[in-house]
């Protein structure tokens, strides 16, 4: 199973933020255990662009956005055996500045198999 782990903040810190030594070591552990597929920090939301759809031509808005809360500051893509495993690993993450993470499972092959099974059952 693969998971998207989003790192969120309610307010972005001022100035450039590199990974702390603790975070580097946490990421090394994820690599050592073969869990890490991708890990990225994002540039400030003020540099972001938002596109909204519906009603003809899409609307493009440059950041910063007035009503931004729960700002995504970075993400991991991890592979693990269960949601519990990812929860266990993320509890060891050395955040302490008001960040929080949201863990979402990526819809994967197993789900496709599940859908096929359901379809087959519905058909009979």
């Amino acid at each position, binding site marked *: *199973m*693969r998971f998207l782990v989003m790192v969120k903040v309610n307010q972005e810190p001022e100035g450039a933020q590199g990974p702390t030594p603790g975070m580097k070591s946490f990421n090394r552990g994820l*690599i*050592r*255990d*073969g*869990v890490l*597929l*991708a890990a990225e920090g994002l540039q400030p939301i003020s540099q972001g662009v938002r596109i909204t759809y519906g009603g003809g031509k899409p609307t493009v808005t440059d950041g910063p956005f007035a009503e931004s809360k729960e700002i995504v500051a970075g993400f991991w*893509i991890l*592979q693990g*055996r*269960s949601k*519990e*495993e990812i*929860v*266990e*690993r993320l509890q060891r993450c050395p955040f302490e500045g008001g960040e929080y993470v949201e863990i979402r499972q990526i819809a*994967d*092959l*197993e789900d*496709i*198999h*599940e859908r*096929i*099974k359901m*379809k*087959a059952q519905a058909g009979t």
Partner: protein
Amino acid sequence: MSAAEASRAIEAVWGVESPRLLGALTRVVRDLDVAEELAQDAFVAALAQWPSEGIPRNPGAWLMSVAKRRAIDRFRRDALFEGKREMIGRELATVEEPDFAALDDDVGDDLLRLMFIACHPVLSREARVALTLRMLGGLSTPEIARAFLVSEATVAQRIVRAKRTIAEARVPYEVPDARERAERLPSILEAIYLVFNEGYSATAGDDVLRPALCEEAIRLGCVLAHMLPDDAEVHGLVALMEIQASRSKARVGPSGEHVLLLDQDRSRWDYLRIARGLAALERAQRLAVPFGPYTLQAAIAACHARARTAAETDWPRIAALYDALAQIAPSPVVELNRAVAVGMAFGPELGLELVEALETERALENYHLLPSVRGDLLEKLGRLSEARAAFERAAALTQNARDRELLLERAARCRF
């Protein structure tokens, strides 16, 4: 936290911690069986205490300290027993106590040592696979049995026998030196790739543990690549698995049928896996001249991964890579794939020549892809009645009902 949630959380901790725990125990007590028992004891203690007391802040250290205490108790009890027996006899042998304090050292190569022991060439393939998943994957015997569609008793017996073989063969509990490592690495790579292929051959409706074997194999490959960053074939294997796994979603059609590579919807490929696979391939190719079999297979897979459409596939390069693969790892299946690539690159006549050379190959006697490939090439040459007969023969040989239908449809289309 409910009891069920607590036990799931503890199992998750176990999955994360058990390989390192076992690795350190094996290094110090030098006995797989004893190491596993001690680790199990620690796990049982956790199951008893954590639901009421909560999971400790450093669960790995907690488990290690319990295992260490048990190890010391056990050793002293055994030593006492041995001592009494010796006194009844004549001389009092000094029994050397393992250095239990070393359990707390992080020597960095515990997992590598464990992998070399679990995949020792004295063991059968099945035994290597079972031991690797149990020791390094933290999978339980029932989980391995479910994933491999065999009984729990079979897996349990494989593991018991494997441990006995390791003890009897006096396999050293050390990471082999560079020369021996090169000799023994292929048996590790083979075991990991077997795990991958078992997962890759899973079909719709199978237990979810089966497709999950693909990810487990990739994870083990990544762990190994991290420990042996200068071994080209480790990266080659990781690249091969990542690129093959990138097609997981595209290779199953809406009613569960198998979709061939060239017919796949490439927008359903996983481009993160492809990027990771190509990066691993680049590392492998930088490290090795000439390329090993996994690196070559990964390079072939990469040709497909790089092509945005099936028509853009670089067939001459694939044919050249199969040519190289046929020289270092010859097999009838490689030869058949080479025939397909040559047919695509240089025309169906040349492909057909290679296929016809395989007709007498005993190993392919009942392999439906041989007449299927032959039919395809004959159809392209306009030799329709021969093509039809080949497709019909392929249909008669395949075990898969949906594939049989497709082959019979192709046979029917060869009527003019």
